[in-house]
């Protein structure tokens, strides 16, 4: 039973069939098998948030879920969210506000920010900081990220109005 197991899942809307060892986690599966390297590895103990992806539409830590557990599921990575345009306005806000420097935390940060904005259309700065409190950034000190998320929320409300 330590032999590779077959899995079939959707990644960014594309069907993927693979044989994976049970111990392979989703982050490594995405990066090494599918060469989707936008999901980053920072700690492998679920604390830094760099590996945040969406599984069945909910954000999770890819380092804490086994690839075999994703059989039959739908996984979305930052590449998928970018190509679909879902976070285009958030990315534009990040660019304008320089809410990224080295970029390593950014995919996970965008995932978490989009997760927040889908749940709360008018988040306070405190709520933004709280929702992003599981995503480590060493470069920005967070303020620019909070500004960018706040600005995006405001502009989405404006478009919806």
């Amino acid at each position: 039973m330590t032999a590779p197991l077959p899995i079939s899942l959707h990644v960014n809307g594309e069907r993927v069939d693979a044989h994976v060892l049970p111990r392979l986690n989703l982050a490594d599966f995405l990066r090494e098998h599918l060469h989707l390297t936008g999901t980053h590895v920072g700690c492998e103990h679920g604390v830094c948030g760099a590996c945040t992806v969406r599984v069945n539409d909910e954000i999770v830590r890819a380092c804490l879920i086994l690839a075999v557990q994703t059989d039959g599921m739908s996984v979305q990575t930052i590449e998928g969210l970018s190509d679909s345009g879902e976070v285009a306005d958030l990315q534009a806000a990040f660019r304008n506000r320089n809410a990224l420097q080295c970029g390593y935390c950014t995919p996970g940060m965008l995932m978490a920010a989009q997760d927040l904005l889908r749940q709360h259309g008018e988040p306070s700065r405190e709520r933004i900081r709280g929702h992003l409190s599981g995503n480590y950034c060493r470069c920005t000190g967070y303020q620019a990220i909070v500004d960018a998320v706040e600005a995006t929320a405001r502009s989405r409300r404006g478009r919806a109005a």
Partner: protein
Amino acid sequence: MTLISAKAETLSVLDRPNSYIGKTVPRPNLDRLMQGRGLYVSDMELPRMAHVVFLRSPYAHARLVAIDATVAKSMPGVVAVVTGEELANIITPWVGVLSHLKGLKSAPQHAIAIDRVCWQGEAVAAVVANSRALAEDAVEAVEVQYEELEAVTDMRTALDPRTPLIHPSLGDNLAFERIHDVGLVDQAFSESDEVVEKEFIFGRHTGVTLEPRAVVADWNAADARLAIYQGTQAPHMVQNIAAFHLGLQESQVRVVCKDVGGSFGIKVHIYADEMATYALSKLLRRPIKFVADRVESFNTDIHARDHRCKGRIGVRRDGVIMAFEIDDLTGIGPYSMYPRTSAIEANQVVNLVGGPYVTKNYRARARVVFQNKNVMCQYRAVGHPIACSVTEGLVDLAAMKIGMDPVEIRRRNLIPDDAYPCASFSGLRFEKLSHHASLDKLLAMMSYDGLRAEQAALRKKNIHRGIGIASFIEVTNPSAAFYGVGGAKISSQDGVAVRLDAQGAVICQTSITEQGQGSESITAQIVASVLGVSMERVRVILGDTDNTPYGGGTWASRGAGIGGEAALQAAKILRRNILDVAAAILQSAPAELDIVDNIVANTSDGAPRIELKELARIVYFRPDTLPPGIQPELMATRHFVPREYPFAFTNGVQASWLEVDTETGFMRLLKHWVVEDCGTIINPQLVDEQIRGGVVQGLGAALFEKCIYDERGQLTNANMADYLVPMSGEMPDIDVGHVVSPTLESELGAKGAGEAGTAGAAAAVANAVNDALRPFNTIIKEIALIPQVILTALGRI
């Protein structure tokens, strides 16, 4: 602002129309990072690439008796298991000393330990396999016999005669000592009305870059060339050192920096495991990848700031500070780091204490001692946080002793803004600083009087808020005075090559490097401004020793000041060359032409004359149509090195406003302010963001971060759940303001700004905590200011 122009007809870039300098423009090429399409070294894959995992010593100090890799070598996917002895045939050891740090001594360090390990985490063998997981499996099967030795783990007793010597050949555990004594210190103290003494204790920190250290080394035996893919800040330095220790010519080594997931100085040093990786590639004749995991990072990334500093200040009742004195002790690892040495941090502390003040009397002793802990070296703001915390902590204490407001005592002692150029009592030469203007601006930004009133009102309700102020100076744009004079092959100059391509776009190659601070952007902004082209047309190539001029790279806040000036000068030459060709084509004179918005135009009436695209077409494809004798040159290279001042000092001041829950010891950071004078600002948003990021690293030090070693030299919190880094939930918003005093050393006038935030943040917070706790008559002089520390100081536990 005064500016230097080399030629009368050349407008300074700061005056040019459509100049990007001073403008907040978004950085180019962020999309790939935001889409997850960056290329970090940890993302790289090369054909036949194998992975190395290091077996690391569980002991802080032990003899390596025997290593048996028989089982490991036979495990699935294992390519090789290599010991220190085997690797020593490929790569030579090194010693981390520099001749200008008199008396600095250290012992030779090997890529993989031979005979003896000197810190918990030091590599004792390398396992190379087809995947990281398989290599880790095999590591577990390597049998090592250790003979545990006594470990030196307390810097306070490292020099005791009874403490074992880590390197008997060195005679003691003292790596470096520096004494500095100027003015009449004893007399000054005796003439003081109050003398205050405190010991300041700092936690050992580490960088915790989100992308761990990662290297792909690719030795091509047929080409006899080594390609090193690494997130280093100083690729030419790595090229030089790798070549030297592997017995190669520099021209046989190429260092390429892809996207880097954070560095802050962590990735500017030479690490044994990275050197081992280069050597393994040469030995095994295939690409080898090393990516440190998080636990390894904690155990082997350089640590920093492990200091105990006794500080003393003498002050008169009228507020005049008479003297500063420090006795600083720092415990590094068992080796001085290579090549920048582990003495620089202590040296900086001595240099920077008291820096903002007019005081003439100063005595300092700094001692750097070896320990059996992880190696220690330069990390963002090297030494500044220590010097600033000690200085500003002492100044606040002095103010308290004489019953003076902390702002007032600073007003009476900060070097006047019109006193420049002048020198500090540690011999540092200041070109032009603005301590008073910065302080005035800060007080206005934070509404200081209003906060004091709020503090007083809330105190009556048993709510304790505090204000902390910290003035500081910062070392930027270092000349060869930092490393070169000591014999290190670390360049203090940088170069930029610019050329007009066949479509009229601009290709720019610079020797500075990018770790997210915006090196690419500021280079493009400068070049575009000088040339008169739009920024979208400028492509910047950096981080490749094969494809950039030779230079120092980005560290010690030198990228903008030095690399930026090189870009400016190179672009000026290219502009002149373009106008020379244009003049020939248009039968005009260069002085009658300018480049504006990608078009050569008349200076007189702005009428467009020829597009750059068209000019390029002619030069590259139809030179037959040019007037006779013309040899167009659409490429220019310029280097720049600071010559007048060994360092371009900047200055700043920070303030922290926080609330301490005196029942629980927990605190809330309510707000933070910084006023920074870094000379000409190329991109205001990028500078402010550097400052914010730097502040939060300093806040991390103040509140959370500490490498905790036990008496046996074991790092007990080597993971991200136990070593606490600042996350968004606890950080305040940070307001940033500026005063601008350009340097006259360069036309650009830019100084550095990368480390200012970290230099003063912890000092401001520490002062704020003590300010908040004034009613309780307690002074805390250690960081991290964890609730345990606060409650203990309050006598509640």
